[in-house]
């Protein structure tokens, strides 16, 4: 028994020692970071100094800058005023606001309103339009969002180095995050505990009722991501990391887009070859109706929620 306990003591001592060593290591890294910033500042001063020797900047800093700036402002204001004037002239010649016989209300609109319910099964005509008649467009939109998230990920993500140790930039960002963001704010945590489930539930409601009432994948996804961001703000990255990592983002977005693409490929194939798709439209107004629109709304909502959340995480700290 005693041996066991003394072994345990040793282990505790070891772990304490390790912790102290890690702290020392972190201190050194921060010191190096500071030196790096100093040297970069110095480089910048040199660059500014060199800039002052250029003739074009000398001229630009004295008379030239004033002349060109004034000319530019005058030109910009004229251009803006001219543009507003011509656009106002156009607006004055447009059909009156709220008139029933505008050129926009043409045969396409009539078709969507008169046949939409029967052909798509969706009570919400806009949902039927964007997820059935124009579903290809919506697939493109979700893809644009996904690609934007990937681009921001490439630009802002701070990765660990080859040995798996955090790099300077990440340590600086962590310190910055600790300094500027709330840590263990009681009021925020209490209100997040109350609000997060409600917000998430409301988002799910908006997505699932997309074909019955105003709303749908995009708005519902934005509401869900707002709830997730509230949770992240209150409880920090460690707790939110338990359910949302890069893998979550990757797989959820990939599966949603793949499902969307396959589902729409199937219905385009059937439509083009005049085959029966075999997807029941259901009773209009029921929750399980209007064929593929509800699953497609869910897929879009997933992509939007993940994308918004990852935007926030990347802009705040450069990672999850």
């Amino acid at each position, binding site marked *: 028994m005693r041996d066991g306990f003394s072994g345990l003591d040793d282990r505790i001592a070891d772990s304490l020692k390790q912790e102290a060593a890690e702290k020392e290591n972190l201190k050194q890294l921060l010191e190096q970071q500071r030196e790096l910033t100093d040297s970069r500042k110095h480089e910048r001063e040199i660059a500014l100094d060199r800039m002052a020797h250029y003739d074009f900047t000398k001229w630009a800093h004295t008379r030239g800058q004033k002349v060109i700036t004034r000319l530019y402002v005058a030109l910009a204001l004229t251009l803006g005023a001219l543009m507003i004037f011509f656009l106002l002239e156009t607006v004055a010649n447009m059909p*009156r606001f709220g008139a029933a016989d505008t050129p926009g209300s043409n045969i396409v609109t009539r078709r969507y309103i008169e046949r939409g319910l029967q052909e798509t099964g969706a009570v919400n*005509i806009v949902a039927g339009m964007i997820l059935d008649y124009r579903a290809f467009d919506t697939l493109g939109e979700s893809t644009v969002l996904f690609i934007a998230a990937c681009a921001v990920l490439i*630009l802002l993500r701070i990765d660990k180095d080859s040995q798996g140790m955090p790099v300077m930039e990440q340590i600086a960002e962590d310190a910055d995050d600790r300094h500027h963001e709330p840590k263990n704010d009681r009021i925020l945590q209490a209100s997040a505990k109350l609000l997060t489930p409600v917000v998430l539930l409301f988002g799910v409601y908006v997505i699932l009722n997309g074909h019955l009432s105003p709303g749908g994948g995009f708005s519902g996804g934005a509401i869900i991501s707002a709830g997730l961001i509230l949770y992240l703000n209150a409880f920090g990255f460690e707790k939110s990391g338990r359910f949302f990592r890069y893998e979550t983002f990757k797989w959820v977005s990939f599966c949603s887009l793949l499902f969307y693409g396959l589902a729409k490929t199937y219905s385009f194939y059937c439509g083009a070859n005049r085959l029966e798709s075999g997807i029941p439209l259901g009773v209009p107004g029921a929750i399980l109706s209007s064929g593929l629109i509800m699953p497609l709304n869910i897929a879009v909502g997933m992509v939007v929620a993940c994308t918004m959340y990852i935007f926030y995480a990347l802009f705040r700290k450069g990672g999850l």
Partner: protein
Amino acid sequence: MLQMLYENLEQTVAVILFGIGFGILLLQRNLIRKIIGLNIMDTAVYLFLASMGYIHGRKAPIVVDGVTDTARYINPIPAGLVLTGIVVSVSFTAIMLALTIRLYRRYRTLDIDQIALLAKAEGD
């Protein structure tokens, strides 16, 4: 002309907002303010599109009691177009902000003229 502009008040406001956004885009040197200007222009376009679809005395295009009469609902197409616009605007705002962050990390300034000069001085 003024009478017509007053009758098309929504479109007039949208056009003026568009001009303000354009002015901000041209006159501000701060990158973040330029992005805000571009977003104001986007918002003006949404307002314009949404106002084009509205018809006096009609309801939102959600079928009530199975009545599919064109005289009862407003035009649903602009709503779909605005949705597309919002999604694209969110995407490119995010990319522009990310690029701005990278520029700020490198040059420690948001002034576009200074960034251009610093980049030139660094180049040779």
